[in-house]
């Protein structure tokens, strides 16, 4: 059996009094692609934000690469270099050029050699067809281009594990395919372990090894993708799929 990259045990999350995640148990193996599905407000984003410490959790444990995470800010800073995250709103730093956005982590956080990091960043940019955009500022890019840079920025840190939080949700439809192909390439060619939160059902079906279905902060089912899309275990998931119209 392959190594477990991440295990979540009995995780509970509250916003003040409001209970938003209930007894989350989840484990992900090396190279596995998990898509997190569920209606809006079900806690998908909150869950993956817990996984790299952007949200605090009140109970439970997260074990990353065999080690239990002690959730201090210092520890998270270390772990976040191993867990890349890409957001819905791309969030490139507008004060830095594309290449400097990408190099900030490798050079300042990881103290990588500057010229080697630059060469690699250029290579990564080329792999997403943006090699001519290294020295422009983010405001000159389209949404799809920004999102591709954001993915490269996360990859430049050599993460072992990637989190994608609705990365195509704010893009024009014609930009979506390009982004999805990049993620698919990562999954298939680079065998990257990842959790993908998405509303693109076709894409989820193409890429997922396993689907985790979440509603109101509860994991209702975890099902191999093939089975989930043909015959999910729960009626709720079936109703969700029927409503998605894809």
């Amino acid at each position, binding site marked *: 059996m392959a190594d477990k990259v991440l295990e979540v045990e009995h995780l509970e999350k509250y916003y003040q009094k409001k209970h938003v995640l209930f007894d989350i148990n989840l484990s992900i193996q090396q190279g596995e692609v998990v898509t997190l599905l569920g209606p809006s407000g079900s806690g998908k984003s909150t869950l993956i934000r817990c996984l790299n410490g952007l949200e605090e959790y009140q109970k439970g444990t997260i074990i990353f690469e065999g080690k239990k995470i002690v959730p201090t800010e210092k520890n998270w800073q270390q772990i976040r270099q191993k867990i890349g995250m890409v957001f819905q709103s791309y969030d490139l730093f507008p004060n830095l050029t594309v290449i400097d956005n990408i190099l900030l982590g490798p050079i300042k956080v*990881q103290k990588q050699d500057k010229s080697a990091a630059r060469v690699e960043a250029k290579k990564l940019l080329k792999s997403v067809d943006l090699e001519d955009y290294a020295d422009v500022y983010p405001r000159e890019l389209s949404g799809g281009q920004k999102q591709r840079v954001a993915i490269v920025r996360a990859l430049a840190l050599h993460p072992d594990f990637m989190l994608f939080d609705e990365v195509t949700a704010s893009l024009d439809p014609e930009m979506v395919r390009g982004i999805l192909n990049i993620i698919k390439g990562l999954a298939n060619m680079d065998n990257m372990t990842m959790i993908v939160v998405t509303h693109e059902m076709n894409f989820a079906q193409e890429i997922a090894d396993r689907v985790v279905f979440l509603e109101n902060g509860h994991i209702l089912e975890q099902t191999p993708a093939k089975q989930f899309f043909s015959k999910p275990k729960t009626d709720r998931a079936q109703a969700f799929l029927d409503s998605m119209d894809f």
Partner: protein
Amino acid sequence: MAHSGISVLLEGTNFTRLLGGLWVTVKIAAIALIVGIVLGIILGVLRTFKNRPLRLILRLYLEFFRIVPTVVLLFLFYYILPRQMNFNLPADQLATLVFALWVAAEMSDIVRGALISVPKHQRESGMAIGLNRYQLYRYVLIPQAISLEIPATINLATRVIKTTSLLMLISVMDVINIGQQIIEANNHSHPTGVFWVYGLIFLFYFLIDYPLSWWAKRLEKKRLERANG
């Protein structure tokens, strides 16, 4: 006419004395601004931290310097502190200190306002690539805050320069105090001297403040163009 009032400006060393006074004014304003802005940036960054007692103390500091009129601050430091606490400084250094503390207070609010208006997502995507708090401020938040805060900072500078006109009240030999002396000394020979001396002082202040305020306006316009373009 033997005495058209304007000649008062050229009488003896009057003009160089006025320029000397202007230099005192500019020096006090400039040092106070430099010290105050640096201190204010530090305080402004600290005010965005989560630590409640620290934030409360800095807030009280700001409100004190904002609410108490500058004249009262000057008197407080000039007349009361020396007596009560045996704290003695020459008037011009004391004025620089008071102004620097005032600038720091106002600047802390400008910096804090700019930092918290940087979108929350910027902070998070910085954290997501493993930046620590210092790196987050240094490479992401402060550079973005600066373009928001420069126009307000320049406006603060023009206010500080104008407010130096209060310095004569604690006997600093600034341009207004010297002007006053010249007027009084030449009152008999140049009855309309007051008009010319203050006219020149007006011109001095205008020449310093107007370019600053023009620059602030221009930067703000550029920033808006960039933000909306």
